[in-house]
């Protein structure tokens, strides 16, 4: 099934590592999604301003504005407050996960995200959901 470009779901990928962004982009685009990238939380907030986002993948450790602070801010802004967000980090410690949920993350994954997990995750947000 081909989805017309205008109705493609959109993911916001926030990570300071270009490689990680490329990796996520390739996986997400393969599922027929559009991808917006941001290098840090600050940039992500700007990028999210004029678009409707369906899912956010957020790295924890980033310069300028880290993932927790970005998500905390995003949850107060009207167009991102109820956008599902997944925190992705290299540390598997429990306290990281708790901090992520406190900031309003819907899920917490450890890098590197397996391709099948990501594609399964995307399948939870079918294209027709978009109003």
């Amino acid at each position, binding site marked *: 099934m081909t989805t017309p470009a205008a109705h493609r779901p959109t993911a916001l990928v926030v990570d300071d590592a270009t490689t990680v962004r490329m990796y996520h982009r390739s996986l997400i685009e393969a599922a027929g999604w559009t991808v917006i990238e941001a290098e840090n939380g600050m940039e992500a907030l700007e990028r999210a301003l004029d678009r409707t986002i369906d899912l956010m993948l957020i790295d924890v450790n980033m310069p300028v504005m880290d993932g927790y602070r970005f998500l*905390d801010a995003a*949850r*107060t802004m009207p167009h991102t*407050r*109820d*956008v*599902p*967000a997944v925190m992705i980090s290299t540390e598997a410690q429990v306290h990281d*996960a*708790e901090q992520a*949920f*406190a*900031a*309003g*993350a*819907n*899920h*917490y994954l450890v890098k590197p995200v397996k391709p*099948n*997990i990501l594609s*399964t*995750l995307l*399948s*939870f*947000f*079918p294209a027709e*959901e978009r109003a």
Partner: protein
Amino acid sequence: MNPLLEQFLTEGRSLLEEASLALLALEAAPADKNHLAALFRAVHTIKGASGLFEIAPFTKAVHAGEDLLDAVREGDVPFTPDLADMLLMLLDQVSDWLDQLEAHQELADGADASADRLAAKLRQPLTEDSDTRTDTPGGAAPPPATGVWPDDMATEDKQRCAGEPECWRIDYTPDANAFYSGDDPLLTVMNTPGLRWVGTVAPEVWPEPGRMDPFEARLGFAAVACADEVALRAHFLYVEDQVQLTRLSTDATARSEIDGDTLALARDLIGSQRRLLAAQGAEQTAPARIAVARRMLIAIARRCDTGALQDIRASLTGLDPEAPEAETRLDGLAEALGTQLAQPAAPNEPQPDLEPDLGPVEPKTESRKAISIRVDADRIDMLMNLAGELIVAKNALPFLARRAEQGVPSKTLAREIKSQHDVINRIADELQTAVMKVRMVPVGTVFGRFNRLVRDLSRKLDKRIRLVVEGEDTEADKSVVEELADPMVHLIRNAVDHGLETVADRRASGKSDEGTIRLKAYQQDDSVIIEVSDDGRGIDLDRVRAKALEKGLVDADTLSAMADATALQLVMAPGLSTKEQISDLSGRGVGMDVVASMVRRIGGTISLNSTAGQGTTVRIALPLSMAVQRLMMIEVDGGYYGVSVDAVVESQRLPRDRIHRHRDNETVLLRQRMIPLLHLRDLFGCPPDTSKRDINLMVVEVDGNEVGLVVDRFHAGVDAIVKPMEGLLRHSECFSGTALLGDGSVLLALNLAEVIRCRWT
């Protein structure tokens, strides 16, 4: 394992081999009826044999292939490259299945689905060519889905139809006289293509018990199958008046297609939402967290709905996130959702291609290796004879013992023991040779699979290639032959991808359109020589030099002094690739360096020859056998090491002042040759020994280069069985393995190529 199955596996593999050879031959000469007949026969035999086991998907797929070939034989369907692709796909699948049968005595889950897909694909040309030719693509749209799912079909069964392009309900009411007209209604319905579910339908009115004819067919069937209409109609062709097809809509089930992955993630996500709801976050983001958790839960419920989640979905949608107790209620709903999803087992197992690492534990390459070998009866006879001789020779020993007891003078006794030793020694030698011969297999067993490789590559790259194989009967030790496969695949890929030009380029340089790759095997002394040559563009030596310099593999001085032939060997240095564009085939990191190290690991040597514009030849020399090696023992700082005698050129004692020093490099001039020195004490991290005036030098030749190893002492040569290092030591590449000496001590065998690489790179 069941001996019958074992036989089937052996036979199946050899038939597969035959089938693929015939198929490739047929592709080269599509008009040749003999190849077609051979192919048909092989596929037919596999199908027939498979019927002995409970592997219905296997039989089904092969049967479809047989039908297709039959149609080709009858001239109903033309033989095209696409058709060959399809058949090769079938052969690949069958080969996988045979592996699965060998490993687990049954087919893996999902075999059913792949068999259906494959069978449908194979039958497509058949149906296209039958009476429905008018059914042009895009012409007749499939009829609307008006069917009603059978009442007694379980939800899980319906889910198995999810995502299928076409799904049909089949109502089959066999004629009452079906059994007399040669129909087998049950068999017919069970063999329905893409069958997902079958139920029986009892007649509305049963006849009076006294008047019932037990030989009348009374029961009807309601079945659901995911296949296209044409295939279904073809299947029920003989009973079409008794069958009614109605199309079913899979939309309702499409979204609820839940595989193991989805279910697992859904459960994780539900847990996460509950943690999100429970998390102590900032006050002002609390409503947002509830709202997004609700949104997420709705998405999960919708994705996983199999019909049982409707209530929860309604409650979730109806929940107002701003309401006072929204958080608690949402958590309750999440819990309920989690319980629901925990109950039914996932109907579809995770697709094997999603998680390749969940497959059988043993690595695939292992299972590829032939476990049994075929041995010539003559060789077994020879072993028997030798065993007999050994028993006779053994009987002499008690006799000798008695002589010793009788007080025979020790000199006489020693002479008798020696002569008996000679006899046993001869038998032992011959036994070793005989056993080695048993292990000898023709290299052709490896060459055989390259036809297919070359064919696939040439199709992919759009180059015309002819594969010429010479000397496939040359024999080598089984382990050598098996280890040969991987490096050769790389060499052939290189030849096809980098070596051979496209048709246009070949024409431009005045060559024939068709490129040739030649595999040649022959025996030379104690080695088997394998040559892979192509008549392509050859290696651009200037670029190799430039690249080596750029990558810092050599310095400019060394490079300019380097002879062309030596510079060419740089291609095998790690990290040098001259193909700028990373190509799909051979550029993925596996370059000549990997091939070279693979060859060295099995005790071989590799060299390269290339003429610009005329082609490249890679020559691999392998030991005939990996079992017994003759090693020269050397001593360094009290430790004993072995060096393969084949590599030793000469041993010399030289006064220290003969050593020339240039920067860090030491060399000696020996018979007008400059020999670079390598102090093994340096390499092994032992303190240097400068006490003696002379050095002991062992000159060895590796890959055409001579190097002088400085050692403490020379010892005798020994015949040793070198076993590769295991466990943690496996990565110490400077040693090729260990050997046990007669006195029980352990000898480390040096991997010279690696030793030299350690020193100079």
